[in-house]
């Protein structure tokens, strides 16, 4: 299963902007966050294919996962 991961704001520091990863077994947002070495409480906004998602949501083939820290503006 191929998943595209997109990182934003300070999550990019020491990591990447975007990369594609292969998974053989089912994987959740939490698994990927852990794998990236991002402390879970720092994750503010999660999108899967542009829709708000939570940490326990499972990913499917071809999904785009976007991760942001808690940010705001306006």
């Amino acid at each position, binding site marked *: 299963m191929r998943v595209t991961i*997109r990182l*934003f*704001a*300070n999550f*990019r520091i020491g990591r990447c*902007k975007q990369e594609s990863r292969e998974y053989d077994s089912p994987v959740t947002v939490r698994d990927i966050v852990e794998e990236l070495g991002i402390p879970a409480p*720092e994750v*503010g*906004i999660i*999108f899967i294919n*542009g*829709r*708000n998602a939570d940490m326990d949501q499972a990913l499917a083939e071809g999904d785009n996962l*976007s991760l*942001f*820290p*808690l*940010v*705001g*503006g*306006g």
Partner: protein
Amino acid sequence: MADRIYRVNMSDLTVRVEDVREQWSGLGGRGLTSTIVAAEVEPTCHPLGPRNKLVFAPGLLSGTVTANSGRLSVGAKSPLTGTIKESNAGGTASQLLARLGLKALIIEGQPEKESLYSLHVTADGVAIAEEPDLAGKGNFAVVNVMLERYGEKTGVISIGPAGEMKMAIANISVKDPEGKVRSAGRGGLGAVMGAKGVKCITISVPREAAVPIAEPEKFKAAVKIFAKALLEHPVSGQGLPTYGTAVLINVINEAGGLPTRNFRSGQFEQHDAISGETMHDLIEERGGKIRHGCHAGCVIQCSQVFNDAGGKYKTSGFEYESIWAMGADCCVDNLDQIAEADSLMDDIGVDTIETSVTMGVAMEGGLLPFGDGAGIIRILDQDVRTGTPLGRLIGGGAAVVGKAYGVTRVPVVKNQAIPAYDPRAVKGIGITYCTSTMGADHTAGYAVATNILKVGGDVDPLKKEGQVELSRNLQIATAALDTAGLCIFVAFPALDIPEAFTAIVDMINARFGISLTADDVTELGKNILRTEHEFNLAAGFTNKDDRLPEFFSTELLPPHNVIWDFTGEEIDEFWNF
């Protein structure tokens, strides 16, 4: 010394110093400007005529050491929307007016002859002087002239050439601590100031002047709790200071709600070129400043200093809304061109949202190709600044240009341009656009926080459930915050940290020696909204004006392929409180 009101009559060039009416004593900022406009301005009057009034009011906490309390409210009947209007800005003026003990500065009437004036506000009153040499000058030049005349610490409120020409896109600028400007941007209030013949207002305050605090110890304790909450919350303490508001370019793009190509799509392919992350890296590379406050006492510091490729100052306060409007909405993917236009708009004195959305509509009409940043810069500098026929047309705003070019996709509510969140993909903010007493205004009830950013709860942006209630609660709370003179971004911690909200109430109580409860503050917010709504109804607006333009209900917005699907009855539920 008791608080006072200065009333300047531009018809006979006289000034009256008044005591504050008892029923106005608990009000400040938006609560006071809207109350005065509703009480004294005929709702059906022409906004540019002698019967409109322009009211400036510092917030209830302005001038104190409260963090982020330096917002200045400006109110009038709007020439853009025809509704009541309050627009607020940072800068130094609010704190200076508060330290003079001024509750409000009211400008009324209209000079008989076409002439430009300055108003110099001091502890003794207001001196009115003719200023023929300031005619046509941009805001940066006006600020420089006034600082040379009165000294670096002087507060300056001014209009650029757009305000003098009474353009509906004209804003009012307020000098910031570094001698640059911040703007009360929306609703064309610069045109009202121009119609009064007032080019600038300067404020000089004696060194020792301070705002009296009724209960200093209690006040100090609440101030501390409040500042701590601002610094602890991840949005106000880390995200905003590091990436500025432009961090939202990528967030809203990912969410599919970034209006692109005059509201045809919710994603901009070149989003990364204009993102907060890119801006942050460019600022570091070019030796600008990542953190910068729009007023003394700001601990959030969401502003920044953005230099050009040569390392020379270009602009500050480079906001998400401004970058989105000229960027994604006009498809300009060059941050330097956007910075150049931002600086020009500050100098000419026009609202960056209204002006750039107007350009997007004009592009749809064929004036320029989408993506033509150089063309926008040229039109701003050569046409809008000097008032050529094309400049005057753009100066009318998005609705006027849409009509002139026969465009059907015109993103406005009550003639005010819709800002940087597509209401089809962020439905809560759509309710705010519809129902705000100000025309389309995201700051009136920032449902994006709860829809997308997951601050203050979690309401699905693509569903209708809970949006009307969310927008209502946020609009009530925002009206109260705008009355306190607090920056809207204190809402992020105040929504999530209960002590922060309590501290706001405690600070107001200790400042004035009163004992408001949280419920009283909510009631204050409701009363402000009702006062503003009644003004609009008396001006001729009905519930049918609380609607989005038709295309939002008929055109699917990619990538989620969603439409605006609220019925009129559902929207009208908003006013059920």
